[in-house]
């Protein structure tokens, strides 16, 4: 707990209270965020590759769409699993409350899934690349708010001071770029040439760097603005319960991949790039989980 002069002055101790609620949004929500990052991230990367390396990326239209469909469904499945009343999910469509990021997100994610199936149809059944690429532009545009809405949802949690919209939305986009580029490096296999993979490596490295800078900025400067943020960040400082997981996440998701990408460029090694991609994907889960859990440890009343 952060040092409050108040405590020293008054020596105030809670001596009788009800038990506080435990974790409200558990690891299921972490999987939700992680899978959605991959689901939209690969779409961003396909769009980028089709512009920068059209020859190499041409054959990835259908496989990328399938990967996106799989991960968006993992995201939807875990969203549903997290509900205490999953069979009432349909209420979101019949009694929508449009001030809620959950409602807006659910509607957008549904439209996104529809468009992904259209992409699959265009690439696999109709084999119409021109129509695919035209539709892809709209899918990419929709993928941006689908990526961002979880940041909006976190920011609507007035109780959790740590989650602010500007930082969380940047983190969501960087997470999508990081996991999307990592997934494409692994998915590309022999279809993508080294130049295309190098481009993906640059995206991975830069998004890792930006995310790391944001987390470190919050870590160092967050406590200077708000008492609650200071108290929450104590859980990842010193011998706090999430200190080890936080730093493991930062190293595995960001620092090691950055180093490995530099190394892969100097040694022209695809295997090192693949290792960076695997670490980034695994580390992202840890990073997201810590950031999800720590504000929930703070007593609200």
């Amino acid at each position, binding site marked *: 707990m952060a040092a409050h002069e*108040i405590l020293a002055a008054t020596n*105030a*101790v*809670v001596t009788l209270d009800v038990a*506080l609620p435990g974790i*409200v949004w558990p690891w299921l929500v972490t999987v939700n965020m992680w899978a959605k990052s991959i689901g939209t991230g690969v779409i961003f990367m396909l769009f980028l590759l089709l512009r920068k390396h059209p020859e190499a990326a041409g054959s990835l239209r259908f496989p990328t769409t399938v990967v996106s469909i799989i991960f968006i469904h993992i995201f939807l499945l875990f969203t549903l699993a997290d509900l*205490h009343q999953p069979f009432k999910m349909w209420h979101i469509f019949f009694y929508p409350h449009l001030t809620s990021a959950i409602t807006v997100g659910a509607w957008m994610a549904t439209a996104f899934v529809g468009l992904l199936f259209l992409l699959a149809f265009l690439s696999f059944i109709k084999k119409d690349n021109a129509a695919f690429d035209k539709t892809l532009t709209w899918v990419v545009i929709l993928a941006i708010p689908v990526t961002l809405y979880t940041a909006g949802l976190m920011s609507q949690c007035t109780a959790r001071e740590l989650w602010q919209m500007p930082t969380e939305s940047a983190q969501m986009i960087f997470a999508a770029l990081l996991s999307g580029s990592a997934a494409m490096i692994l998915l590309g296999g022999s279809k993508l040439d080294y130049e295309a993979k190098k481009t993906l490596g640059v995206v991975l490295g830069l998004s890792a760097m930006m995310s790391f800078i944001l987390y470190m900025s919050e870590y160092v400067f967050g406590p200077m603005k708000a008492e*609650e943020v200071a108290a929450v960040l104590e859980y990842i400082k010193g011998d706090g319960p999430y200190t080890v997981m936080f730093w493991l996440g930062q190293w595995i998701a960001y620092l090691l991949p950055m180093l490995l990408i530099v190394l892969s460029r100097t040694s022209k090694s695809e295997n090192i790039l693949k290792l960076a991609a695997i670490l980034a994907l695994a580390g992202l889960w840890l990073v997201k989980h810590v950031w999800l859990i720590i504000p929930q440890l703070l007593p609200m*009343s």
Partner: protein
Amino acid sequence: MQLGFLVDLHLCMGCKGCEIACKVENEVPLSTWRLRVKYVDVGSFPETRRTFTPLRCNHCENAPCEKICPVSALHYLENGIVNIDKERCIGCAGCVMACPYGAIYIDPQTQTADKCTYCAHRIASSMMPACVVACPVQANIFGDLDDPTSNISKYIQHNQGNVQVRKPEKGTNPHHYYVGGGNVTLNPLASHRVDGHQLFNKITTLPVGGHH
């Protein structure tokens, strides 16, 4: 009409009568609470004091729980009460995450969100909330904030300068006031919570009612 609550902390003696009355009236399941009285001990021996703070939903004017609810299960009544429709609720727990006062819980029996409704069902029959009736020292004052002649409005006027709300910085504009409150009673970060050192129990946290 804008119904509101005021608790005079000078009067509250921590008997928990309101807490029990609420439990019984609303059949609040074990391990969950709509209203509770928190004890915080202040000072060092022999200069010590025990404070008592009843805590319930604030029926915020700008309620984050209402805003985040995807299906409008949480909604405003015309009298200003923030009410909940348990049939509508999908149990996303967004409201539990949004409320800065920890006022909402997931009912382990119905698997839906629930909270203090200022006893909306009693108000509809022109009765006072159960906690108001149970309080032996009339520390709970309930009434219409829009009516300058109501008890609560008069109490606020009389105690101007010593009326507080919880976490005003959150911009929720609570319709629940305290007289004689302070940092120790109203700010949860201003006191230590020591694991296993409560008066009558050793449980600091409980799993959220439900399937997680």
